[in-house]
């Protein structure tokens, strides 16, 4: 079983209230030197069988239509090597 990871992040120009809240909380807890935080989503898809180029293209399709909304989000798809 292989794993494909899809990361979805809000586009840089879109306000990210969650990331902002984290960024504000960090110094209060004594964590300094962090210039900015963005919070996004990580999807781990367990794939049956081999991850062919065709399968990956399919998953990219799913990432674009379902897992992200291109109006506000960017995504990346990558195969995760088993560790």
């Amino acid at each position, binding site marked *: 079983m292989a794993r494909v990871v899809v990361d979805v992040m*809000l586009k840089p*120009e*879109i*306000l990210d*209230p*969650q990331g902002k*809240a984290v960024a504000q909380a960090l110094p209060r807890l004594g964590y300094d030197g962090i210039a900015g935080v963005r919070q996004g989503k990580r999807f781990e898809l367990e794939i049956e069988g081999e991850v062919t180029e065709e399968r990956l293209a399919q998953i990219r399709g799913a990432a674009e239509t*379902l*897992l992200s*909304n291109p*109006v*506000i989000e960017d995504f990346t798809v990558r195969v995760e090597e088993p560790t």
Partner: protein
Amino acid sequence: MKIGVVTFPGSLDDGDAARAVRVAGGEAVRLWHADADLHAVDAVVLPGGFSYGDYLRCGAIARFAPVMEPLVEAATGGLPVLGICNGFQVLCESHLLPGALIRNDHRKFVCRDQALRVESTTTAWTSAYAEGQQIVVPLKNGEGGFVADDKTLDMLEGEGRVVVRYVGGNPNGSYRDIAGIANAAGNVVGLMPHPEHAVDDLTGPGTDGLGFFTSVLTGLVGV
């Protein structure tokens, strides 16, 4: 006049929307998400709620429901469609309306009686109001921040497609205080606040929301 109210799994305000249609004098027809048939209704309301839990993105999964196929087609052809809250999110995800709705800027769910200004009375759902009229209807959402790029926002403003705007404080960080918008033809309207919860003094803050439903009924009779 028959107004369809769609129920997705996780829809919550479908009963309230149907009640509002009845209070306004229309006949409410319940439509089921898995049934790709609009049953000859004259208009459709996509109600509030948390379709499929809204865990992924609000409205992201519901927009693929079978009922949405004929709905998108009919809406493109001019059928009046009102998306309330989750329904608005579904309309944006379906690209019937531009922009998107994100997490409230204060990151909390907010439920309150919200003052709004009706900015456009030329849509199918707002003709009963006077331009600039202030109304109060409940607002309740966790992801109600309307966002779009500047070009889109300018276009919406320029074409008079901002339908309602928040007044007396922006409750969720929506760009330009936008609470609701319309498509270019004015038949499709989406808004975050809940007019269906303001059709009766007993259970709502007043009856300011009724106009959305009477507007469409009047328009339909006129046709």
